[in-house]
C-alpha cells in the first residue's frame, strides 16, 4: 500500500512540474540579435543601439545580443560573419558599410535569408545594398548616414567656417567605393563653390602624410572622406594637423576629440540609436524590404575650440552658431 501511495504522489508531482514548466516557459525565449562590426571603434554604435532598444521597450530579458568584432582586420571579418550566421540570429545589425557589404556577399553566396539592418552606410543604393530608398526590396535596410552626399556640404561648411582657406586637400581611400563617391561629390561641390581641391589616396602609399606635407601651402586645409581606414587614422591626421598648422575637417565627433578642428556628420551613437527603430520594426513582423532607408536623425557639426586656438585661425561667427563647441586637446583631455 505504501508503494502505491508513493507512486501515486510521484506521478502527480511529475505531471505538476511538467505542466508548470510548460506554462511558465511558454514565452520566455529571448530574441537573438547578431551584431557585426569591423572593430571596436564602432562600439559607440552598439551602445546607441542598446539604448535605443531600451527606450523602445525592449529589456535585456527579451533581447540577447551576439556581438562579433573584426578587431579592425578586414581579413578576419568574413570568419566572424560566418560564426555569427551559424548562431542563426533573428536578424543582424551591421555597424558599418564594410561590414554590411561583406555580410551581403557571404549571405548571397550561402543563400542565407536573415534580415539585416545597417547602422550607417554611406550611399547604400549606389553600393547595391538596396533597390530603392523607399522600398529597399531585399533583406537589407537601415540608415543612410549620408556621408557621401554630405561631402559637398562639408566642403561648403568647412569653407564657411574658415573662409581664409584657399586649397582643400581631400583624403580618400581609392579602395573604398564610398570614399571615391564622396570625392566625386566634393569635386562637384568645389566646382559650384569655385574652390580648389587636391585629392590624396590614403591606400596608394604608406607615406602619403610626408608627400602631402611637401605639398602644403599657407591657407591649405584637409577634408577627410569616409572610409574605415581613414576613420582609423584620425589620430595620425590630428597629429599631422597640429604639426603642420593645417585645419582638418572630418566626419565624426571622435575625430574632433582626437584633435581635428571640426567634424560634420552623424555620430556613431546616433546611428546605433536610430537603427534600433529598424530592429524593432523587423521584430514586430515587418520585412526589411518594406522599411524605407532613413537619413540620419541628427547631423552634428562639432568644432574643437582648443585646436582652433592651437592653429591660430579665425572662424566665421555666423556658421559657428550651427556648431557644437568642444574644448579638447589632441590627447582628448578637456581644458
Amino acid at each position, binding site marked *: 500500500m505504501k508503494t502505491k501511495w508513493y507512486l501515486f504522489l510521484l506521478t502527480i508531482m511529475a505531471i505538476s512540474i511538467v505542466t508548470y514548466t510548460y506554462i511558465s516557459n511558454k514565452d520566455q525565449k529571448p530574441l537573438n540579435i547578431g551584431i557585426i562590426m569591423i572593430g571596436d571603434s564602432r562600439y559607440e554604435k552598439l551602445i546607441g543601439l542598446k539604448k535605443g532598444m531600451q527606450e523602445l*521597450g525592449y529589456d535585456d530579458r527579451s533581447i540577447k545580443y551576439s556581438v562579433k568584432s573584426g578587431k579592425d582586420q578586414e581579413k578576419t571579418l568574413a570568419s566572424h560573419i560566418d560564426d555569427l550566421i551559424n548562431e542563426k540570429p533573428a536578424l543582424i545589425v551591421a555597424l558599418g558599410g564594410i561590414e554590411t557589404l561583406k555580410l551581403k556577399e557571404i549571405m548571397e553566396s550561402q543563400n542565407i535569408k536573415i534580415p539585416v539592418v545597417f547602422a550607417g552606410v554611406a550611399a547604400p543604393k549606389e553600393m547595391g545594398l538596396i533597390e530603392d530608398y*523607399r522600398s529597399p526590396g531585399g533583406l537589407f535596410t537601415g540608415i543612410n548616414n549620408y556621408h557621401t552626399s554630405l561631402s559637398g556640404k562639408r566642403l561648403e561648411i568647412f569653407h564657411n567656417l574658415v573662409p581664409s582657406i584657399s586649397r582643400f586637400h581631400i583624403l580618400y581611400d581609392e579602395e573604398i567605393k564610398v570614399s571615391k563617391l564622396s570625392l566625386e561629390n566634393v569635386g562637384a561641390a568645389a566646382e559650384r563653390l569655385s574652390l580648389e581641391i587636391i585629392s590624396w589616396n590614403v591606400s596608394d602609399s604608406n607615406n602619403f602624410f610626408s608627400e602631402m606635407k611637401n605639398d602644403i601651402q599657407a591657407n591649405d586645409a584637409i577634408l577627410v572622406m569616409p572610409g574605415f581606414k581613414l576613420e582609423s587614422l584620425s589620430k595620425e591626421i590630428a597629429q599631422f594637423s597640429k604639426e603642420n598648422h593645417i585645419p582638418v575637417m572630418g566626419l565624426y565627433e571622435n575625430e574632433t576629440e582626437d584633435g581635428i578642428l571640426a567634424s560634420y556628420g552623424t555620430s556613431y551613437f546616433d546611428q546605433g540609436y536610430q537603427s534600433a*527603430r529598424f530592429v524593432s*520594426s523587423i521584430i514586430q513582423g515587418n520585412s526589411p524590404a518594406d522599411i*524605407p532607408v532613413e537619413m540620419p536623425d541628427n547631423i552634428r557639426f562639432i568644432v574643437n575650440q582648443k585646436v582652433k586656438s592651437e592653429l591660430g585661425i579665425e572662424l566665421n561667427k*555666423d556658421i559657428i*552658431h*550651427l556648431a557644437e563647441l568642444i574644448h579638447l586637446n589632441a590627447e582628448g583631455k578637456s581644458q
Partner: protein
Amino acid sequence: MMKSIIHWLHSQPMRVKVLVFGIIMSTIPLLLISYYYYSNVKPDLEARIISKQELMLKNLTGEIEWEFNQIFQQAQFYSSIREKEDRRTIFYDLLLKNSSIEEVVITNESGKVEEKVSRYELNIPDTNERWFSDEMWVAFRSEDRIYGKVEFNQFGQPVMKIAVVYLENGSRNAVGITIQLQKIIGQISSLKQDNLSYIYLLDREGKVIAHQDYRRLWHQIPDVDNKEMLGVREKLTDLGWTIIMEQPKTTAYEPINEMFMKGLMVAVFVTLIVSLISIYAGLYFTAPIIVLDKEMRKLKAGYVVSPIILNRNDELGQLSQSFNEMSQELHEKSLRLKQEKERLDIVVNGIGAGLALVTKNFQVTWMNPLLEGWINKEEIKLPCYTLIGGMTTPCENCPITCPERNENADTIMRMQKGKREERLFRHRVFPLTHAIKGEGEYLLFIEDVTEEKQMEEKMIQTDKLSALGLMASSFAHEVNNPLATIHVYAEDLIERLEQSDDALDEDEMALYLRKIKENTDRCKRITENLLKFSRKSNWNVSHFDIKETIQNSISLVEYSLKKKKILLDVSIQKEMPCMVGDSIKLMQVLVNLINNSIDAINQEGTVSISAVQQNRRFVFKISDNGCGIPDQDMQKIFDPFFTTKPVGKGTGLGLSVCYGIVEEFGGTIMVESRIGKGTTVIVSIPAETRFKEDKQ
C-alpha cells in the same frame, strides 16, 4: 442524448461512477469560475485598453503638435528679423536647435528662394528655384501659416514643408522650412506594442504616413469602423493629421483568452489529478465490493466461499467481516437445512399420508410421491376438490373458501381407486403462514383411512355381537314369556273347541286371538329390535325419534334390569325434536352404557337415563349408583380391550366403540365416577351434526 448518458451512467460499474463524479465535481466549478471571470474581465480589459490607447495617443499628438508649434514660433520669430546678415546666423541656430529641420529658406513674393540654409545641400539656391507646391502657393496668398503635403525628397525621405508669411516692404515674403518626418514616423512605427496593437498616422488626405506595418505606408486607409478592432483616434487639428491606435480584438482579449486557456489547462490538470484520485478512490471503494460480489456469486451458486480478508476498519471492512460471518452461518444453516430436508423427505415420503400444496385457486402445485401414486398424474391440473374428492365444488367447510372458520376441514372423502375399489381418505387442510404466493398457500394432509374405518366397523360389529351374546338369555326370556302366554291361550282355546264349549262365543274367541296376536306382536317387536341392533350396516343417516331410540335400547336390556331388580328411571324432555344421524349407532351407545351401569350394580340399584336438549345440543346422561370406576382406571376406560369385567362378561370394546361413535356424531363423551357412589356418563351431541364421514 442526456437520457442516454444517464442510462449509460446507470449501467456502469461503481468505479466509473466515482470517476465521473470526481471529474464533474472538479471541472464544473473551475469552468464556471473561469467563465465568470472571462465574462466579467472582458469589458474591464476593453475599457483599460481604450484608456491606455487614448493616453498614448494624447502623448504622441502632444509631442508632434508641440514640435510643429515650436518650429512655427521660431519661424515667426526669425521672420521678424530684418537684417539679412543676421538671418543666416539665426537660421544656423534654428538648424542646430531642431534636428528635424532639413532646410530653411526665405522666399520672395514670387515664391522663389532668395536665401537658403540647408543641412545637407549647398546653401546655393537653384536659379529661379520655386519652393512652394501649387497648393502651398494658393495658401501663400491668403494665409499666414501654410502647411504643405507630405512629400519625399531625393533620398526617398518623407518631408513636409511649412511656411510663415511675413510682409516686407509691402510684399508677402515667407520663411519656409522643410521638416524631416522620418523621426516622427520612425518613432511611431518602431514603438514597441504589446499584443499586436499598432499605431498609424494619416495625413490630411487619409494616406498612411506612418505605420508599424510598413507595407501599409503611403496607402489610403478606408474610413470604416472596424468592429473587429479596439481602437481610438486623435486628430491633429492644425496639421490635419489623424493618429490612430488599433488593436485586433482577438489579440486584445488574448490575455483573458490565455487566462481562460490556462484555466482550462488547470481544469484539465485538476481533472487529471482528480481522475487519478477518483480511479484510486473508485478502486479503493469498489475492489472490496467486487471481491464481495464474486464471493457472493460463489455463495449463491452453492460453493463454499473462503473468508474475505480486508485490512481495514471502515464500513467495507465491517461488511466483509459481516459477510464472512454470514457465509459461515449460511453454510452451517445450509447443512442443517439439508439435514432437515433429509428428515423431512423421509417423513414426507414415509409418513404414509399424502401431502400436497394447494393455492388459493385450489390448484395443486406439489404432491409427495405417495399422493402422486394415489392419483392420476394427468389430472394434476384439476382443482384439488376434483382431483382428490371427485367433487365439482369445493368442500363445504374448506379453510380456503372459509378461512374465518379456523378449522382444518377434517373430512373423510371417498376416492375411486381402480375400477372397483373405493377408498376412504381423511383430508385436512392447513393454511401456511409463510407460503409464497402462487406456490401453494395451503398444505393438504391426506390419510388413507379405509382400513381404519373397516377396523372401526368390525370393532363396532364385534362389540354389538358381544352385547347380543351377553343379552341372548335376556332375549330368550323376553321372547319366552309372550310365547308362553300364546301357548296358554292357544291350548285353552283348542281344549274349549275340542270340548265344544258353548260358552266360547265369538267375543271370547276374539279375546283369545287378540291375546295371541298381542304376544306375537311383542315377540315380533323383540326380534325385530334384536335384528335391527345386530344388523351390520354403515352409517345410515335419517331423522329419528330420540324417545323411541331410548325405548328400543331399554327394551334390549329390560330383562337384565329386572333380573338384578334395578330400578330404571327414564327422563326424556317433552317435545324433543328429531335427531339426525344413525339411530342404531346411538342405540348401540345407549345399550353399551346401560349395560355398563347394570354391570356396575350388584343388586337393586338404580339406573337413570335422561335426555334433554341444551344449547343446540342433545345431552344424554346415563348414571348409576354402582361400584364406580377406580381413579387408576379412568385413563384407560376408552382404550380398546380394556375391561375390568370377568372373562366372558365383556370384550373391553364397549366404551371405545362408544367414543368412536360419539366422535362420529361430532359429539363428546364424558365420564364422572366415584368409587362406591356410582358413575355418570354424559354424551353430548350437536343438534346440527356434521359427520366426519361423507355419507354420499
